[in-house]
């Protein structure tokens, strides 16, 4: 059906009219078979200009408009509103950009006028095939989920819960707290990590809006922004926290001794244990990998001594289903395994530690109650070598990226060491010192000046045991000489890696990961806390290596983004989305594969569009060999007509 289009050519003062004969453009387009009315005006975006459009729509019974003016990034919405005011659908309005893409870049008036005609004609052809569309609206489940309860997850959960929305916080470990709770002091202020984190942990456990699911993992997810359905598997702790009185009798009788995860193997724990004294939830967990009691009639000692009868060997995994509107993913990091570092002894020397182990050694609540002692012989180390970039910035063998926090925490380690062992000597091997951040550079200087830390610029080539010490071979590239140190202890600033199984979770959630395995943000600059999938947000080191303040900031950012969804009863989505043509679809699934948003799926051998997820990029339509999918209002047919219009006269 032929439309009645109105064409409105803006002079933009002399911005357009100076190089384009606007009257001629209006005249020429007026002759187009689908154009019922055309006129020019000095400022279309002004109130009188908009009124002129609105009145022309009514007067000439127009059903669509083209405004030839500046870039659509400026006034597309303005003229859509003018269209609406005139009583026609906002999607019956198109902009022909004859300013930025024409009048401002050309001087030859005749040629610029012809080009402006083509651009306008092209917009007329497009609007002629535009469908009237209404924004897609759908209700929001107004609660959120946070996956991972380290500092980032805790912060995001608290931020959201404090605004009054219910939050489901899922943590795979028996306690929340993440890596931060393992740290002794934090740079650059050297305040005690546990002291600042545990109040937040308690707040989480007591918060009426937070539903805490520890020892739990996300298993399945369906739905879309505003309406996710998540299935979570809660692993059995075999201890009923409501009955448990924390009397600690059970650990005394438990015959099993195994390595302690919280102390990173520097101490041991029983099969039934509390991860650490401040653990939240404060309860015991029976580790089914090590407990013999779960085997029929092997052991039952802990149950025997448990007066309240809190221990239940028959506890089964539980599947919990949660409906949420937004998800924050804060799965954190793990350290690059020492075993990967062949040149540094592949983790086989007990006195070669990674940064987190050293944190535990320094921690007042750690295995040595805050004394720095060699794990091998419990002697005080007099010379300690710290090696930065252990695994980082090494694209050939290890990780290509910079782990960002190591410069700072190594300075802190050296400083803490000196505070514990004032007569000891700390050496730091480094490539560069990256100390961007508030108070960071001063902190590094303090380590050098006040604590006499020796910074050696260069790489360590090899470390090995020698005469009960650890011999470190390296090079000082500034002095240009080889260095040999017989150290009592070596601390490796291991690279940060995405936490184990983050890739599996990403696959489950259908969000992408980058080449290093960190979660991929939607845009590296402009959308750093959003994932590719609408309604899923990223926080903390899961997205990239970062320190505590950055993780907290991103967590609050992610929370704010999630709140923007939760605060609405209904979400609206642009209706300019893909549309399938089932008669042509053969169900090959190529469009499904290319869709960046997982908006497409196959059902009964045909593609189906989830309009809420689709962003209308059209990659599907160019991929489809059978023209069975297209984006509304920018269909191949419209492009075809626009090509024709662009090449005329």
């Amino acid at each position: 059906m032929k439309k009645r289009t109105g064409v409105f050519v803006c002079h933009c003062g002399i911005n357009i009219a100076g190089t384009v004969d606007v009257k001629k453009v209006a005249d020429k387009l007026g002759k187009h078979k689908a154009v019922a009315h055309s006129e020019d005006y000095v400022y279309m975006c002004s109130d009188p200009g908009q009124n002129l459009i609105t009145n022309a729509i009514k007067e000439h019974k127009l059903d669509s408009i083209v405004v030839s003016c500046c870039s659509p990034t400026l006034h597309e919405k303005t003229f859509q509103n003018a269209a609406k005011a005139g009583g026609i659908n906002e999607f019956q309005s198109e902009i022909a950009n004859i300013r930025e893409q024409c009048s401002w870049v050309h001087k030859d008036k005749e040629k610029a006028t012809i080009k402006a005609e083509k651009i306008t004609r092209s917009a007329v052809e497009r609007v002629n095939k535009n469908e009237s569309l209404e924004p897609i609206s759908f209700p929001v489940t107004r609660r959120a989920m946070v996956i991972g309860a380290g500092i980032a997850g805790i912060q995001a959960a608290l931020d959201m819960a404090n605004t009054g929305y219910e939050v489901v916080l899922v943590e795979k470990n028996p306690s929340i707290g993440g890596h931060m709770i393992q740290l002794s002091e934090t740079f650059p202020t050297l305040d005690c990590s546990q002291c600042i984190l545990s109040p937040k942990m308690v707040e989480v456990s007591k918060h009426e809006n937070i539903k805490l699911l520890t020892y739990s993992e996300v298993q399945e997810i369906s739905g879309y922004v505003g309406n996710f359905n998540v299935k979570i598997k809660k692993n059995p702790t075999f201890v009923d926290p409501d009955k448990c009185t924390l009397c600690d009798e059970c650990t005394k009788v438990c015959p099993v001794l195994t390595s302690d995860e919280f102390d990173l193997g520097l101490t041991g724990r029983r099969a039934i244990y509390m991860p650490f004294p401040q653990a939240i939830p404060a309860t015991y967990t029976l580790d089914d990998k090590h407990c013999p009691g779960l085997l029929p009639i092997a052991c039952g000692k802990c149950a025997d001594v448990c007066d309240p009868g809190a221990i239940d060997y028959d506890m089964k995994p539980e599947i919990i289903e949660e409906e949420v509107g937004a998800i924050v993913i804060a799965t954190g990091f793990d350290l690059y395994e020492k075993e990967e570092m062949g040149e540094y002894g592949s983790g086989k020397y007990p006195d070669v530690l990674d940064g987190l182990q050293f944190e535990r050694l320094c921690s007042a609540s750690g295995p040595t109650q805050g004394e720095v002692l060699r794990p091998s012989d419990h002697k005080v180390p007099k010379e300690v070598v710290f090696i930065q970039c252990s695994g980082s910035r090494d694209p050939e063998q290890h990780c290509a990226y910079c782990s960002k926090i190591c410069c700072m925490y190594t300075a802190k380690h050296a400083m803490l060491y000196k505070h514990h062992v004032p007569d000891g000597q700390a050496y730091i091997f480094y490539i560069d010192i990256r100390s961007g951040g508030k108070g960071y550079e001063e902190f590094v200087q303090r380590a050098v000046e006040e604590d006499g830390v020796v910074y050696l610029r260069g790489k360590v080539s090899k470390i090995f045991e020698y005469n009960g010490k650890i011999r470190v071979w390296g090079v000082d590239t500034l002095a240009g000489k080889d260095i040999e140190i017989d150290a009592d202890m070596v601390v490796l600033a291991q690279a940060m890696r995405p936490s184990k199984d983050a890739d599996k979770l990403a696959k489950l959630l259908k969000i992408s990961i980058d080449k290093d395995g960190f979660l991929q943000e939607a845009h590296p600059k402009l959308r750093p806390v959003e994932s590719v999938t609408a309604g899923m947000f990223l926080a903390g080191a899961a997205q990239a290596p970062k320190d505590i303040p950055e993780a907290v900031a991103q967590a609050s950012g992610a929370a704010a983004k999630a709140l923007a969804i939760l605060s609405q009863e209904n979400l609206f989505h642009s209706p300019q989305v893909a549309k399938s043509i089932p008669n042509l679809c053969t169900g090959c699934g190529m469009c499904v594969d290319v869709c960046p948003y997982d908006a497409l799926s196959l059902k009964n051998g045909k593609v189906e569009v989830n309009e809420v997820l689709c962003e209308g990029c059209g990659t599907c339509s160019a991929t489809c060999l059978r023209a069975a999918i297209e984006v509304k209002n920018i269909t191949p047919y419209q492009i075809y007509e626009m090509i024709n219009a662009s090449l005329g006269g």
Partner: protein
Amino acid sequence: MAEEFEPKIVAFLCKWCSSAGSDLAGVSRMQYPPNVVPITVMCSGSVSPLYILSAFNKGADGVLVSGCHPGDCHYIKGNYYARRRIALVKELMEYIGLEPDRFQMSWVSAAEGIKYTKIIKDFVNILKPLGPQTNLRRSQ
């Protein structure tokens, strides 16, 4: 007096980077020849080979497809698909003996008004000596 040949160029610009880049060229008042008519598409990944062929068929002397730099795609990866698809089109066109210079692809970000200007200027200069494109043009 014989008029100088003015090539007709159709440019498929992605909305978020290249079209914005051409807007920037405008805002900065850079000057380039008026031979190019832009068609703004959502993403370079949505440019079907059919569009390119159709433009040549309808008389384009040159066709440009421009998108965001790799990694910058507003739709995350549309430009990667475009890159692959268009590499194939380009190879095939060259193999068939069509002047390969008539078809170009570029990455132009929203900040690269200068680059966009240069691309159009260069393209026009390349096309002028080639004369009208008749091989794929529907004319008879």
